[in-house]
């Protein structure tokens, strides 16, 4: 974990993220008894989007989206460069805030509801994400990802089974999978049109798409950190979990926001806080 991984992330995360999205769409289609689009379909989509007109309600919309992308690359960058995990969490939150602001700028009822639901989602997953950082710190005694990943110690997940499961629960929200794809969904129709991305056209929608690819690769990286120092095993498990998320996505209907927030908090309190309590008492 150093500058090399940083460069690899910035250059290849969109490729990996796009491929994952393509595999996701194909597997989803197969689960529904359809043949499905080509694996490269997400790339075709984005190329097309960049060839369309950028129709905006307010010009500043696009500026916010550029910040969303920039902060996401920054967040993923410091994660893969092995820097401070705390900084990763907070700049990830900042990046998401820019998306919410951009959606508010769109000022249509659909994007406003999308933005509000996104805030509720942030409220739902944030406690568990904080427990994630605290748990990783307690198990490894450092916030530095490079030290966590390279020092020889027993696999972190052995101390953090509760936090691992809790993190998987909120990962469904972060990956925008059913039942928690409240603010926007990657499936065709939603009750609030396209929610948070409703008011974005062409190139700015393309940028949002690319940012999600960066974000997904970052999230899978965060999952594999549980298996430090055995990172290859971690990467394998992260991919398996992505498949599991596709299955959950196809098996569930969309939940209400009350359930989303309440259940995530219960999971954070029981699995996350419970795990930390156990570490404090017996660790």
């Amino acid at each position, binding site marked *: 974990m150093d500058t090399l991984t940083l460069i690899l992330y910035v250059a290849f995360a969109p490729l990996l993220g796009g491929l994952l999205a393509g595999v996701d769409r194909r597997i989803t289609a197969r689960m529904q008894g359809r043949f499905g689009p080509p694996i490269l379909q997400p790339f*075709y989509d984005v190329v097309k989007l960049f060839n369309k007109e950028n129709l905006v309600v307010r010009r500043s919309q696009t500026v916010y989206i550029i910040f969303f992308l920039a902060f996401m690359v920054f967040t993923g960058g410091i994660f893969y460069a092995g820097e401070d995990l705390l900084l990763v969490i907070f700049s990830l939150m900042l990046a998401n805030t820019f998306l919410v602001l951009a959606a508010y700028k769109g000022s249509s009822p659909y994007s406003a509801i999308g933005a509000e639901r996104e805030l509720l989602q942030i409220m739902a997953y944030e406690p568990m994400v904080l427990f994630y950082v605290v748990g990783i710190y307690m198990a490894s005694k450092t916030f530095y990802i490079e030290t966590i990943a390279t020092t020889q110690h027993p696999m972190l997940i052995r101390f953090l089974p509760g936090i691992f499961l809790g993190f998987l629960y909120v990962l469904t929200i972060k990956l925008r999978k059913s039942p928690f794809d409240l603010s926007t969904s990657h499936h065709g*129709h939603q009750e609030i*049109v396209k929610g948070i991305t409703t008011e974005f*056209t062409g190139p700015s929608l393309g940028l949002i798409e690319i940012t999600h690819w960066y974000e997904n690769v970052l999230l899978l990286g965060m999952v594999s950190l549980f298996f430090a120092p055995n990172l290859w095993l971690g990467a394998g498990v992260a991919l398996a979990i992505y498949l599991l998320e596709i299955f959950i996505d196809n098996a569930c209907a969309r939940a209400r926001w009350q359930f989303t927030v309440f259940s995530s908090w219960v999971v954070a309190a029981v699995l996350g806080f419970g795990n930390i309590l156990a570490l404090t008492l017996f660790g």
Partner: protein
Amino acid sequence: MQKSPWIIHYDGSSCNGCDIEVLAALTPMYDVERFGVINTGNPKHADIFLITGSVNEQNKAVIKNIYDQMPNPKVVMAVGICACTGGIFRECYNVLGGPDKVIPVDLYVPGCAARPESIIDGVVKALELWEGKRRKRTGRESIQT
């Protein structure tokens, strides 16, 4: 040739026959997503405006509005004989005729109801038109990022 046609489907005053056929094209039997087609509910994300049924005094403003909200380049496709000419509703007191009375229509898919095969064929034709419009707009020969 572009490979990612996103569609917005609007039902004018159709009998619902054509709408069912349009949706049938999404089912496992025909699966238009093979060609990258997404049935988006959002005009701002759409490339192809697919209209079924005739236009009447009530929905003419809606059709105009959806058309105006779509970013260029865009293609309009009239599906079913009602959307081509007004069809059997042509004589009704409130019916104006096909959507070409309100907005420019690029493609007419006939049939009552239009069969999924001919709808898919229409979408493939629409892709060629779309590509031509894109070239005109950007002045670039081939699609590029």
